[in-house]
């Protein structure tokens, strides 16, 4: 979700296989650099593989370009990586959130599993609970929220939506990215 010169990403931490919950602490949201956060939902093995793959690509980018990647460029990189597997895709739905440029303009991007990008101004949702998330975000979102309010709103959206989805929950984490840095908070959710 985007606010005034800030963005936030929130996700749950359940790792399950159909009805079985396997782990309660799987992290799906990764920091690319101080300006970019990257979250994925879907097949866990693809999430882990792509995490390593993008870490490698970003390290190479930093060495070659001698600067940090911007969120927009990173989003395009993600899309290209996913499309390169067009006929044997990675089964993930990525979300990129960051602050673009000198003025720290919020940047949001969501793609599908083969890299079709979308750049909304307000919020993006992904995962098994995406319909519930869409409903709450659409109702609770408002423009130009300050970081504190953004944190409250995105937390309430996540908690309300995961409680309606059987495959989500078991803990959650919220990252708020502002020009001063990233604040991470873990929220207690229902353990069911």
């Amino acid at each position, binding site marked *: 979700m985007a606010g005034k010169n800030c963005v936030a990403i929130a996700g749950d931490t359940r790792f399950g296989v159909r009805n079985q919950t396997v782990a309660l602490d799987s992290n799906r949201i990764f920091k690319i650099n101080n300006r970019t956060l990257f979250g994925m939902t879907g097949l866990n093995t693809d999430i882990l593989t792509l995490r390593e793959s993008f870490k490698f690509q970003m390290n190479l980018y930093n060495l070659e370009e001698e600067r940090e990647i911007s969120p927009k460029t990173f989003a395009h990189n993600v899309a290209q990586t996913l499309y390169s597997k067009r006929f044997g895709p990675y089964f993930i739905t990525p979300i990129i959130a960051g602050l673009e440029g000198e003025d720290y303009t919020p940047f949001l991007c969501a793609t599908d599993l083969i890299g079709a990008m979308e750049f909304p101004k307000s919020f993006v949702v992904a995962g098994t609970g995406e319909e*519930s998330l869409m409903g709450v975000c*659409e109702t609770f979102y408002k423009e130009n929220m300050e970081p504190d309010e953004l944190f409250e709103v995105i937390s309430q959206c996540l908690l309300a939506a995961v409680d309606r989805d059987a495959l989500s929950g078991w803990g959650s984490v919220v990252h708020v990215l502002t020009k001063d840095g990233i604040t991470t908070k873990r929220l207690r959710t229902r353990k069911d």
Partner: protein
Amino acid sequence: METYLGEKQQASQWSPYINNGGSCLAVAGDDFAVIASDTRMSLGYSIKTRYSTKYLKITEKCSIVSSGMQADIFTLHKVLKSRAQIYEQKHGKPMSTDAVAKLVSRLLYYRRFFPYYTFNIVAGIDDEGVGCVFSYDAIGTLERVKYSASGSGSSLIEPVLDNQVALKNRNDIKKEDFKLTKEYAIDLVKDAITSAGERDIYTGDFVEISVIDINGTHEEKFELRFD
């Protein structure tokens, strides 16, 4: 269907059911109930009509909204309306909300082995004047609740109602301090169904919203997005 090689083929079989989309919701307060539904009727990715009512006022104290297949909604409402009329003429008084709720459940279960493809919500004022909402599944499982949503937008609306009516996961307000007023409920219902209209393709066009309290039923209609 198996071929001579033994693999199963996917046969697309004719189904008597279709889903015409739409969303419905209801919220109950201490002495009132708010019930709303959109009016769009869709088939696949097309809109068949922008105004096809899913709402029926059964008595001054009780109404029903249904989502699902429009043919079954129409028939169920027709049967329900006539049964309510028969009751009123036989007993000299209108049906109470509890009786209507039970009747709907029985009508649905009567078709247990070829169900009505309808997802109903009954809302109104019970005999003590307290607001009530009853939600059903397709074969008549009855549960009295404080709020409910059904239809294609239900997964978008339910978590909003969880957070704003039942105050789930709220740290800023205590249940004892919260009073659900009529204005709050009406605004919430309007917001929730508007949000569903934004993001659900089957919800839109118009909304019929009605507020039921001790003085009767007050009906209203407003516009949603036409896209």
